């Protein structure tokens, strides 16, 4: 169309003129020339208008649905009888951005009275359905949930909406929560129009009267302060993220605004505007749209904003950093009150109410309702897991919601143990430059509850929990004993801990030594394991052959298929990351039912439909029947073995299955501990893999204890471990004896491998 105009206009004009007037030739030429130039210019102008109109429509279309993926922690499920202290619940609520008030009147608030909590949850679309906002009341007594009710109906189960822990963005992308126009509160929708563009419903993209008024004011004040821009023009400006106010830009802006108005309905434009308008900055990312701003400044969904909060956000449209309520409180308050007045003047809010809201404080939360990249190590793992199934582009633009397994309280404890615990250990022992990687998991479901990849947990970068592969040392030993038990031994089988010489395939000789450089003579398997004797372990392992251990590790995908079964494997000459050690021990902690450790439970689309679920898949571990024996032995490690100091560090004497690990020259310190429902792995060492002078029990164990000293622990009821029979045996030589004999203890056996020798008490 533009091209046609260019060709016709000059021809027509010259023909008409030459017919009516008899003019000199040069004049005709001049007129022709001028007409030609005008035509060309008009044509070029039309082309330009066409091009930028098309461009703005494309951009508008992209921006409307370009929403980053949001990532959530696991929702807290509370049930009667659950272990929960007020301190932990408060920490949980704060992590989820809940605000403490005296009387919760809207979602996102809670009140505490002694040990009674009233929590007004926010609506959330879970994979099993939409959960509306509800009032959950809890009575805690002695660290347990005694009673609970949901919307005043007594019940036994409630679920809180999860904390938002981050989002996955395109590089340089914005942070938005996109909602349909109907989801915004009426006052916000009308209020924005009243303040920014009163004529919005009637103009065609440009409000000439508003523009004239603004120009008049600019002329009389001598500066360009009033823009007179319509909502559509602001929309255009936001699309291109520029605040340049020169005339050429202004012209383009007007053209684009008209183009948008021709193409889209007022409804669509307003909806996109409310979802797109710039309202602040977090880190390097813009906060866009009222819904996101509401979450950021008030930690509530936009539907629950009160009039004075709406007024503040509407006021901030004019200048989000200038009126930043966290930084310029007074300025923001004044601006808010101006807006409240304007709501009253335009009749959106009764005068009396506006006055009342004016008296309210800003009520902005000091801490943002969410913080981006709060858990860099965990988010890194989430991203890696999602990449197995989703293209980067899908994650960044399609507004997916990822429900993860993160337990914010466990994560906070782990982070604190990493930073404070490590500094304390360095101070006590004079060590320096220690680093750490930690994993906390639920062994039964494979949920990764917490992940720390750096002693400074806020630092993104090298994720030691996942990527630092270090020698595991004695951490491997329980699996050597597991294979011995599967081969017919029991925990009271006696093995020699004398010095041992192993000829190697290359002709060398390997002479492993005990940590204390002593030989301990004949010892039971139980003692050898809980004291972590190297010589006895190697003798046992050489009995059935290191290839069996290699096969076990290959089966767990922790050893490459082509790795040689070197005898030193028996003492943990194998490099694993803390996450891999966690997956190794998951098998033990879950009674021999393997499940994949996972950071993600499900991925939902914007409507709450599950796109991907990661259900708990169980695999039966071949030697599973022997595992309860190993679990029993490991609880003895924490009573009288290498981790005997654990109960003292924890301040509680519980049955915790524990294993320490120290590698050559004390480069790496490992500690693995599991309870009835938790598994945690801690590695401490140096990034340069230099000797650090640390042992499992001196560095990693205190950090482990630091994590769990404030968390509820369900200890292992060894007598309920499946498939065991118990005998009183003499602890030292393994003979079955009588209950009241000195040195007698209860030891479990598998049916069929019970001890046969009985004798009365030793005199």
């Amino acid at each position, binding site marked *: 169309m533009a091209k046609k105009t260019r060709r016709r206009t000059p021809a027509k004009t010259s023909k008409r003129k030459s017919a009516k007037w008899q003019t000199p030739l040069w004049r005709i030429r001049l007129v022709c020339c001028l007409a030609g130039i005008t035509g060309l210019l008009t044509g070029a102008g039309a082309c330009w208008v066409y091009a930028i109109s098309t461009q703005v429509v494309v951009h508008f279309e992209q921006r409307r649905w370009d929403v980053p993926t949001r990532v959530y922690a696991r929702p807290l*499920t509370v*049930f*009667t*009888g*659950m272990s929960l202290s007020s301190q932990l619940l408060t920490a949980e609520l704060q992590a989820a951005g809940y605000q403490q008030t005296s009387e919760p009147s809207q979602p996102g608030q809670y009140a505490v009275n002694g040990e009674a909590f009233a929590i007004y949850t926010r609506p959330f679309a879970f*994979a*099993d359905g939409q959960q509306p906002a509800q009032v959950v009341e809890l009575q805690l007594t002695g660290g347990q949930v005694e009673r609970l009710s949901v919307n005043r109906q007594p*019940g*036994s*189960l409630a679920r809180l909406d999860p904390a938002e822990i981050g989002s996955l963005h395109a590089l340089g992308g914005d942070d938005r929560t996109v909602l349909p126009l109907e989801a915004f509160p009426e006052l916000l929708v009308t209020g924005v129009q009243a303040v920014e563009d009163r004529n919005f419903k009637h103009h065609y993209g440009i409000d000439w009267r508003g523009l004239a008024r603004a120009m008049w004011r600019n002329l009389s004040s001598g500066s360009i302060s009033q823009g007179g821009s319509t909502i559509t023009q602001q929309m255009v400006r936001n699309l291109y993220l520029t605040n340049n106010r020169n005339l050429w830009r202004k012209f383009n802006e007007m053209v684009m605004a008209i183009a948008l108005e021709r193409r889209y309905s007022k409804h669509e434009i307003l909806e996109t505007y409310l979802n797109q308008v710039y309202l602040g900055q977090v880190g390097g990312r813009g906060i866009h749209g009222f819904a996101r701003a509401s979450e950021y400044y008030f930690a509530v969904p936009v539907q629950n904003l009160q009039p004075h909060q709406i007024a503040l956000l509407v006021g901030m449209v004019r200048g989000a950093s200038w009126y930043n309520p966290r930084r310029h409180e007074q300025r923001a308050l004044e601006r808010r009150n101006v807006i409240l007045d304007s709501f009253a003047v335009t009749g959106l809010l009764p005068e009396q109410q506006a006055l009342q809201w004016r008296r309210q404080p800003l009520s902005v939360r000091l801490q943002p309702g969410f913080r981006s990249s709060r858990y860099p190590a965990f988010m890194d793992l989430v991203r890696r897991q999602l990449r197995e199934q989703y293209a980067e582009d899908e994650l960044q633009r399609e507004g997916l919601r990822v429900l993860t397994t993160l337990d914010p309280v466990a994560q906070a404890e782990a982070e604190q143990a990493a930073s404070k615990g490590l500094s304390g250990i360095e101070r006590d022992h004079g060590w320096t430059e220690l680093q750490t990687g930690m994993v906390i998991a*639920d062994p*039964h*479901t494979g*949920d990764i509850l917490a992940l720390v990849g750096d002693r400074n947990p806020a630092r993104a970068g090298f994720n030691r929990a996942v990527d630092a592969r270090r020698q595991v040392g004695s951490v491997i030993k329980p699996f050597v004993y597991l294979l011995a038990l599967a081969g017919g031994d029991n925990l009271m089988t006696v093995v020699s801990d004398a010095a041992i010489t192993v000829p190697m395939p290359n002709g060398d000789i390997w002479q492993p030594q005990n940590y204390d450089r002593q030989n301990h003579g004949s010892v039971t398997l139980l003692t050898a394991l809980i004291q972590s004797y190297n010589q006895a372990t190697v003798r046992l392992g050489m009995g059935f052959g290191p290839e069996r251990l290699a096969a076990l590790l290959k089966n767990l995908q922790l050893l490459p298929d082509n790795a040689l079964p070197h005898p030193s494997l028996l003492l943990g000459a194998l490099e694993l990351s803390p996450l891999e050690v966690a997956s190794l021990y998951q098998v033990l902690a*879950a*009674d021999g*039912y393997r499940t994949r450790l996972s950071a993600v439970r499900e991925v939902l689309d914007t409507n709450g439909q599950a796109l991907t*679920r990661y*259900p*708990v*898949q*169980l*695999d*039966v571990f071949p030697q*599973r029947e022997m595992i309860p024996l190993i679990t029993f032995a490991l609880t003895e490690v924490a009573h009288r073995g290498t981790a005997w100091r654990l109960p003292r560090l924890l301040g509680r004497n519980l049955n915790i299955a524990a294993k320490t690990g120290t590698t050559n020259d004390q480069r790496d310190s490992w500690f693995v501990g599991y309870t009835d*429902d938790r598994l945690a792995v801690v590695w401490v060492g140096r990034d340069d893999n230099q000797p650090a002078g640390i042992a499992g029990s001196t560095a990693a164990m205190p950090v482990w204890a630091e994590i769990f000293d404030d968390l509820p622990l369900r200890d292992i009821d060894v007598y309920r471990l*499946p*498939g065991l*029979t118990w005998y009183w045996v003499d602890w030292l030589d393994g003979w079955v004896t009588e209950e009241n004999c000195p040195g007698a203890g209860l030891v479990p056996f598998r*049916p069929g491998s019970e001890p046969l020798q009985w004798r009365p008490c030793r005199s």
Partner: protein
Amino acid sequence: MHAKYLRWVLMAVAVQLVACSSQQPVPIQERSVDIEQEVRQPAEVEGAGLQVRPLQNPGVRELLTQADQAEQQGDLNQAGIFLERALRIQPRDPELLQRIAEIKLQQSNYEQSLNYASRSYDVGPKVGELCSRNWRTISVSRDQLDDPAGAEDARQRSVACAAKKPEGF
């Protein structure tokens, strides 16, 4: 005329070939499992007598009820989600583990139904109705996984659930 006839024949052959190649191999024993007929009802009869029912968390009970409703409405996925929520509360509840096994069985996920039933048996009472449901689920799963000897062995053990006293009694 002759050429035209030949073309038709060739086309018919081609269509047949396409039909052959797009046909999926059908496993011989593929069938849907009737959980009531094959597991629950016989187990009720077989496992009559001594019953050991571990105490159940009321929260878990509530989720089991919701899972029941979802299952009755034929929404096995939804039932699975409720059961998995309960698993996060009480991971060693044998009834819960068996219920998950039965959902997996109905979803033809035989490997998982086998493993969940086995886990339920490991931590369960090893006697009575639940024991029988464990072994019947294992038996049907093994049957579907082409292990008839294993299936028969499991069938025998399900019968033994009523007669056998639990270990430690």
